[in-house]
């Protein structure tokens, strides 16, 4: 029962996710990093069973890296990456679907534009200003509806994210103690904070 949520701000995108790796009633791990960097200036928050999460994100990440290697260093825009992900999910849908719900965010340095794409496991892709995957959407979408506006600063964006995390801690049945927050802007992907260090093996 993962939580992934994201918003666009002026100059970048923030993605936050809970850090629990759980199945049924057992928590295997409390420091999982579900926000996968796809390129220097894009990242993908993934929710779903750990098998699909890891397999799918590894596949996408490798293919995006392959594109850059095969095309003399030319990079894919965030929209192109999102469309590639959608194509992969759509092709797999009628064969053996990946049960992953995604929020893909990135910053295109060439055009100075940020982009956030909502994708459900059935491969419906849509650009959004903010998005939530999972049961958390019932709690967080209304906070975003109220507080999000065009032209937020990074600090304001993080404040809204913190508000959502607090709301979940108070009202969500499933206790999610650790959240990891990452941003992507013209300088690249950066981890803002985490509840538990993913590097702790």
């Amino acid at each position, binding site marked *: 029962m993962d939580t992934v949520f994201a918003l666009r701000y002026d100059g970048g995108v923030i993605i936050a996710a809970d850090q629990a790796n759980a199945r049924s009633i057992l928590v295997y791990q409390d420091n999982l990093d579900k926000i996968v960097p796809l390129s220097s200036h894009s990242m993908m928050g993934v929710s779903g069973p750990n098998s699909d999460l890891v397999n799918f994100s590894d596949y996408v990440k490798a293919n995006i890296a392959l594109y850059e290697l095969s095309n003399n260093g030319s990079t894919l825009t965030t929209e192109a990456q999102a469309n590639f992900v*959608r194509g992969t999910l*759509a092709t797999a*849908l*009628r064969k053996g679907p990946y049960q992953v719900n995604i929020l893909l965010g990135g910053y295109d340095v060439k055009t100075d534009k940020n982009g956030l794409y*909502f994708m*459900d496991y*059935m*491969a*419906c*892709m*849509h650009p*959004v200003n903010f*998005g939530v995957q999972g049961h958390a*959407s*019932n709690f967080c*979408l209304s906070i975003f509806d109220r507080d999000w506006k065009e032209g937020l600063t990074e600090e304001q964006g993080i404040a809204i994210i913190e508000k959502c995390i607090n709301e979940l801690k108070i009202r969500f049945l499933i206790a999610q103690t650790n959240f990891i927050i990452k941003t992507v802007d013209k300088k690249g992907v950066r981890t803002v904070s985490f509840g538990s260090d993913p590097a702790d093996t």
Partner: protein
Amino acid sequence: IASDTRLGINFQTVATDFKKVFKMNDKLYVGLAGLATDVQTLDQLLRFRNELYELREERKMKPETFSNLLSTMLYEKRFGPYFCEPIVAGLDSKNKPFLSGMDLIGATVIADDFVVSGSCAENLFGMCESLYKPDLEPEELFETISQCLLAAVDRDALSGWGGVVHVIKPEGVISRELKGRQD
């Protein structure tokens, strides 16, 4: 041809600017109602087939032909269908209006008055049957279809959150966004 612009997952609205009506050429539009992923997949497949046709034939596809192509594409997936119920709207080579609608496995109906599709199809049928008159001018047609759409979606919890209307005329297409109830 008109549609609402809601993207939802069950009762939750994810976006209010989701495109469901797609231009194939200046005189041919297709509207896709149903599962969002199949709406997007079919749009991509239809654009592919249409552009390939135009490259090979060096002419635009007639609406009747396109409708038939779409029907065939849907029936190919008879036992694992695309969950979409499309409508095709266009002007034929003599600029006579063409309308067709079909179910998810490609059973086509060609109509001379109106075609409807979606979760509030019944509502749309009622509205169109009441408000439609033949031989309306483009501006009157725009008013009529807008009223049909807005009234129908207001009675359906899963439809609405904005609308878009395209009026296809021989001289060109005029597209307008509708302001409706945002609930």
